[in-house]
């Protein structure tokens, strides 16, 4: 405990920690936002065209077996970015999170009852408006559940990026390991978990705000 207090007592350390935390938030949440958009588009495609579904299921099965560490380093080799560029981590995590989200989104869209869809059509909703204002909102609870899993796993995976030298809180683990110094490692673990918890709480609040009808059903 004394070690940690001493470690945190240094102003330079604290400002470095803040930079790492912001890097970590950027590296884990940017892929999450991109993935949500991609997953909705792809989920819609899956729902409309059967073959997209077949292709995506096999791609995601293969993608999930590739270790994050390997994906972080293969991406620069394939698309020609620098090895240390943070964009590699962003692309890798976007790939993971999108594959995680697509299937539930497609299933949620398929689960919208036909009579609801028919009612919207009868009320004069054109397909796009019907999708954005009826089908998509009904899929939000399922999407939110997926996004929560994705945010936790992204936040914990970004740490692995430290092994290839991108920023984020994972740097505390490699630094601590190299210097045989426990304080940064403990601080890193605690900060990562607190970040995951806070983001999760925000997501729950967001979901409840987007789906007011579920609360009405509960009370």
């Amino acid at each position, binding site marked *: 405990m004394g070690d940690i207090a001493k470690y945190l007592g240094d102003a330079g350390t604290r400002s470095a920690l803040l930079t790492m935390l912001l890097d970590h938030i950027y590296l884990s949440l940017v892929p999450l936002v991109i993935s949500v958009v991609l997953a909705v588009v792809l989920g819609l495609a899956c729902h409309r065209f059967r073959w997209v579904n077949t292709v995506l299921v096999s791609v995601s099965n293969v993608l999930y077996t590739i270790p994050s560490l390997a994906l972080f380093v293969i991406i620069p080799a394939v698309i020609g970015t620098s*090895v240390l560029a943070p964009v590699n981590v962003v692309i890798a995590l976007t790939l993971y999170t999108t594959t995680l989200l697509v299937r539930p989104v497609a299933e949620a869209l398929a689960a919208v009852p036909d009579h609801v869809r028919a009612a919207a059509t009868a009320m004069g909703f054109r397909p796009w408006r019907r999708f954005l204002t009826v089908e998509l909102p009904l899929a939000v609870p399922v999407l939110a559940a997926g996004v929560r899993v994705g945010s936790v796993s992204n936040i914990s995976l970004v740490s692995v990026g430290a092994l290839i030298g991108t920023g984020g809180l994972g740097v505390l683990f490699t630094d601590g390991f190299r210097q045989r110094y426990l304080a940064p490692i403990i601080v890193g673990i605690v900060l990562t978990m607190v970040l995951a918890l806070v983001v999760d709480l925000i997501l729950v609040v967001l979901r409840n705000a987007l789906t007011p009808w579920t609360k009405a059903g509960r009370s």
Partner: protein
Amino acid sequence: MIFADAIAWLLDPVNWSGAKSIPVRVGVHLLYCLGAVLGASLIAVPLGLYIGHTGRGGVLLVGSSNALRALPTLGLVTFLYLVMNGVQTVSVLIALVVLAVPPILAGTYAGIQDVDRGVVDAARGMGMTGSQRLWRVELPNALPLLVGGLRNATLQVVATASVAAYVGIETLGRPLLDGLRVLDYAQVVGGAVLIALLAVGLDLLLALAGKLVIPRGLRLAAETRRRVKPVEEAEVVDVV
């Protein structure tokens, strides 16, 4: 081409003999994964069965298991390594067990929770005791989700065991880290391909094992449900 180089690396006889050869690393990788999944099952399956059967502590379980998922494995490995004065084996195993517990626990618990209440009530009505219901009704019905949890855990552990190379264990993460240091992508991609193959192989094995242990009656029920469902939905639309 990078993938051609990777195949060349994979086929190079130099990489197939000695203490740091591909077979040795595959073996070490497999051992750690098996140890971790077995260890995690010993903790998570009984816990999931107990909570699912008694219905006690579900909320607490979901919360703490989500918190476990947020634990960064790299942080845990380096932490345990320093705390245990460099005992790599135990620190890596504990970290991988921690990684594997949440999916198995969630699968077991959800499996028991999902068992049709009518089936459990029928078992009670037939005079089955609590433990008879658990072992002869709830557990067999929970097997599909339980096996699903095991498969998830295995995939994650196989992928993450590569991080163990950072504290000096000869897993398949070694070629990733070594290749990265000298920018030898053939090695990196070769190692990644091996890990992916290992993961796919184990997943297929577990899927097969699942087919063997899941009772035939359950599979029949699932197939009938699938066949009946579209008809029901069509009827609903007709009525509307």
